[in-house]
């Protein structure tokens, strides 16, 4: 048996090297190619990007204006990932304390309410942590809203602001006393906010139809504030990302409530 395992290990090491060398051969020309970087797109955007989309920050002009369909796909990927992870999470928890196996629903995400979640003693909830996060929470939340709403001027925007809001929510969940999870860190409220944000996001894209600019066009294109579209999108995406990631982190911490 010893000879066989040594030979099989040698064989598996050999196939790994073959796979990596094969990939390296294909990748090398692309990495070493140094033709000059194309500048047409950059010149057009530098010249007329601002007044077309209204945003001073060109990157958010692109990913919320010109290529807003990609960003929409990305929000959907985030939504599906959170739903999938929550489904898996409840099944992992149920494997731990073999609760009733819900028949065929997707890990009973619909029925997943943290109230029946078995309260676990939180070793990490020392008093110091509670006081500090309790105080910092609102400040982080405020900063998150700033990053979200000023996406078109300073760097930042929907996603970055949303993640900071999510961490703000987690701080609040950690910070407040254990019994009631009042305020924004209550999981029920977060689920509602997330679904509402997703619906409003789609309605915003439908609004592009009104002035005949197509689904993802800018409805406020011909008004004086075309940047309004980007601000609205930033706000809605920020809310959606913030609530869904906040909800996931709270669920991962074993349930704030």
């Amino acid at each position, binding site marked *: 048996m010893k000879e066989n395992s040594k030979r099989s290990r040698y064989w598996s090491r050999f196939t790994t090297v073959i796979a990596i060398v094969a990939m390296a051969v294909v990748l090398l020309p692309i990495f070493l190619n140094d033709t000059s970087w194309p500048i047409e797109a950059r010149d057009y955007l530098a010249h007329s990007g601002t007044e077309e989309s209204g945003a001073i920050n060109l990157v958010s002009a692109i990913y919320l204006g010109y290529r807003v369909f990609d960003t929409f796909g990305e929000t959907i990927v985030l939504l599906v990932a959170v739903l999938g992870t929550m489904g898996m999470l409840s099944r992992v928890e149920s494997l731990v304390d073999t609760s009733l196996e819900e028949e065929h629903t997707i890990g009973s995400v619909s029925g997943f309410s943290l109230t029946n979640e078995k309260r676990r003693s939180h070793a990490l909830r020392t008093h110091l942590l509670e006081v500090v996060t309790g105080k910092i929470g609102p400040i982080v939340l405020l900063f998150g809203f700033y990053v979200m709403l000023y996406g078109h001027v300073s*760097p*930042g925007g929907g*996603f*970055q602001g949303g*993640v900071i809001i999510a961490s703000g929510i987690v701080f609040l969940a950690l910070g407040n006393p254990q019994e009631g999870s009042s305020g924004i860190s209550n999981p029920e409220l977060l689920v509602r906010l997330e679904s509402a944000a997703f619906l409003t996001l789609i309605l915003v894209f439908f609004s592009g139809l009104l002035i005949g600019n197509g689904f993802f066009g800018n409805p406020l294109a011909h008004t004086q504030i075309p940047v309004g579209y980007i601000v609205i999108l930033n706000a809605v995406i920020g809310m959606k990302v913030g609530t869904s*990631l906040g909800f996931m982190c709270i669920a991962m911490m074993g349930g704030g409530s």
Partner: protein
Amino acid sequence: MIILLLALIIMLAIYTLTSKDLLHGVIAMSAVSLICALLFTILQAPDVAITEAAVGAGVSTVIFVWALRHSKRRDDEGE
């Protein structure tokens, strides 16, 4: 400067894959994300730097730590 940061990222990446303790791997991964964020600020890409810092280092570290808390920290199967 960029080459120095890239070399640091490569060393951290090698460390994540070879370290026996997974928690050290997770910490090295978030260090890689942070250095990436630093690199992006140098390369005049502030948006991507904030995203990398917030999303890359922040959220994925939380998820990795949750995964480790729910399972075993030691990578004792070895090669």
